[in-house]
């Protein structure tokens, strides 16, 4: 079960865009965006969700969060994402720091494992 992941809906792109916006606007959170529906993306979500546990402070407070965006092509979603990832193909994962600044990414097709994902999260801890 995913405890720290927001799964953005595929069927309602307007709602998806709104949820992404709200996630970005949330204060004091390091966001890990995972893009796509591939097996790699599913694996990255599962691992990243577990990696969030070590920064849990209480039942309701965790400074790390995962946002899984399965559909990256819908126009309202791109409008939200383009300022972060640019106009090209979405990478596998991107991390934003407390101030919504992109701090690192894992491109599609690159090898990754829990340590590499943790390292990406750690980049998000920097200002």
């Amino acid at each position, binding site marked *: 079960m995913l405890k720290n992941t927001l799964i953005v809906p595929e069927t309602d792109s307007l709602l998806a865009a709104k949820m992404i916006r709200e996630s970005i606007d949330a204060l004091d959170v390091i966001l890990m965006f995972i893009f796509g529906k591939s097996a790699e993306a599913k694996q990255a979500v599962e691992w990243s969700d577990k990696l969030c546990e*070590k920064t849990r402070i209480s039942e309701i407070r965790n400074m790390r969060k995962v946002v899984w965006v399965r559909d990256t092509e819908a126009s309202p979603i791109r409008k939200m994402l383009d300022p972060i990832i640019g106009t090209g193909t979405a990478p596998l994962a991107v991390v934003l720091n407390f101030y919504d600044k992109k701090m690192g990414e894992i491109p599609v097709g690159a090898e990754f494992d829990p340590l590499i994902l943790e390292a990406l999260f750690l980049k998000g801890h920097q200002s």
Partner: protein
Amino acid sequence: MKDYRIVRFMLFFLMPSTGAHAINFESILLYRLGENDYRQSQTDILVTEIDEKIGIEWNEADLSTQLGIERGLIAKGESLLQRIDFLRKVTSHFFTANVYLQELKAADAQLQVERSEKKALNKISELEGTRDAASDKFSREALAGIELVKEGSKNLDLLQDKTLSISLYDALNDAVFVGYEEIAKVTGRFLAVEMDRLKEELSKRTKEGESINVYMSAQIHSAGTLRALHLEGYDDITVGLPVPFARFQIAVAERTKRELEAAESLGSLIKDGNKLLKEVEAAVRAVRDQISALGKAMKIEALDGNLRNLEQSLLESADTTVGPLIEKVKEARNRIQLLTKAPEFSATGDAAILIEIAGQLQTTVWDLRFVAQSAAREITSLVDELEQRIQALPSAISSQSLTMLRSFSESLKNDSEVAQVFKRMDEIVTALGLSNQVATSVLETSKAGRIALADEPLDTWLDLLTAGERHPGDMILIYAKVTSKHENEKEITISETRQRIQLRVVGFYVETRGALFFVDPRGGGFVGQNFEPAVSLSYMGHVGSRHGTFWNSWLNPGLGVSLTLLDFEVNHDIELGLSASLTVLNDFLYVGYGRNLQVKTDFFYFGINPLVFSELLGQRRSSR
């Protein structure tokens, strides 16, 4: 004097020592004081609470590595050492990252509380800054560890054992879900495996019958005396029940008793300097006479002549194996010569010098006893060896000479005359009332060896609660020594170090102190009674600071009341003075104003703590 006691012994390694500072203890010894850790430092004085438990941890990985390199058993570039170094660094990064993560969580929790309470923007901004700094620190430390692991897994020379590199990486990929404490534990486990390999490797390369020993001892230096303390696993000193420091001490402590005794002695010296000068001079003469008596009792002149003849005949013998025997004879001669030398004392009327001489006399008597006992042991050992070799060296060892030496050896074992001489010397110096207790108590310290790299950790602790009487400002001295020993050979010190830890009390506390006041009556007809010495008991209140080293260790002002035994008038048997006292320098200097309750006269005074005074003299002596 107790001998070093080896509690465990294991075959290990040895090569010739290159000096006593070969090991860098700063990276090996760690002191845990409360919630803080401090590295070993010869020069810095650490500070701890008076009831604290002091943890002492050895970095055995570093100790083994340094020893292996120092003893020439392992080359600096060997892959085993590189792997250990690599794992140490990785473990250290993850361990520190875990500490920083806890700081980050605390900072974030505080920020969330302030946000929920809608505090002022500048307050929020300040907390954000704290949180960001903690987050950044955590990130950089953890990333450094992960980058090192990634780099290490690529480096085939570094990770020659591929099984290790793969399994370490896999293990870390599992541990990273749990947290940084778990990651540090995993790397620590891999480090332990490599350490076992290093031990095994070093054991293979060492000579049989050789060992490396680690010795540790702890002492408390309090008011001029040294007392041995128990270090778990290193000695068998009995510990008392845990007793917290009494913040309001009304009972007269042992230190206070010593201070009162010293004040009385010093007061007598000052009141009647000429009489005491004569007593000290007489004591010096008496000790010299006893040294002469010792020479006669031990038949030193005849013995020396006998040994001289023996040395000569051994030198003239054609036997080439007598070299060590000649050395032994020479050593015995040198030793007994020391027993004939009386020390030079230049007595003057100065009270300080008199106290110093009294202390020196005590030390001299102690030294003489030690030398006499050593000489007796050496002569006995020499006789045993001569008896074994008399058949092989009939021309060099005459039976007459051997008989005389044997008779001397026997007489030393049973002779009460020598014991009587020392008893008389003790009586002479004890009569002076002042002694150098430090010199003797140092030798009471029990010391035990532990084998470096044995299975049991070298870590230990010292519980101050069970350390007996202790006071703010007292110093704990921790000694550590690493030695090498081959069976049948002398133990060689590879390296040694010392750490000083000062005790402190934070907040208000009251202690009893003994002092010598110089009292000046105010008013009345007390002509000729200017600043007469008087013994005083004081109850002094102090306030210890958490951060002020200068305040606690040096200035440490005190305010309190003093009871003084006065003697303003001859027609009063008891005159008690009650006064207000102000002290500085850890109750070394006193000043105050009070009233003689019986004579009903005020008095002004200044005073000193004589124990601190004689301690300073003791330090001056030991620094020569």
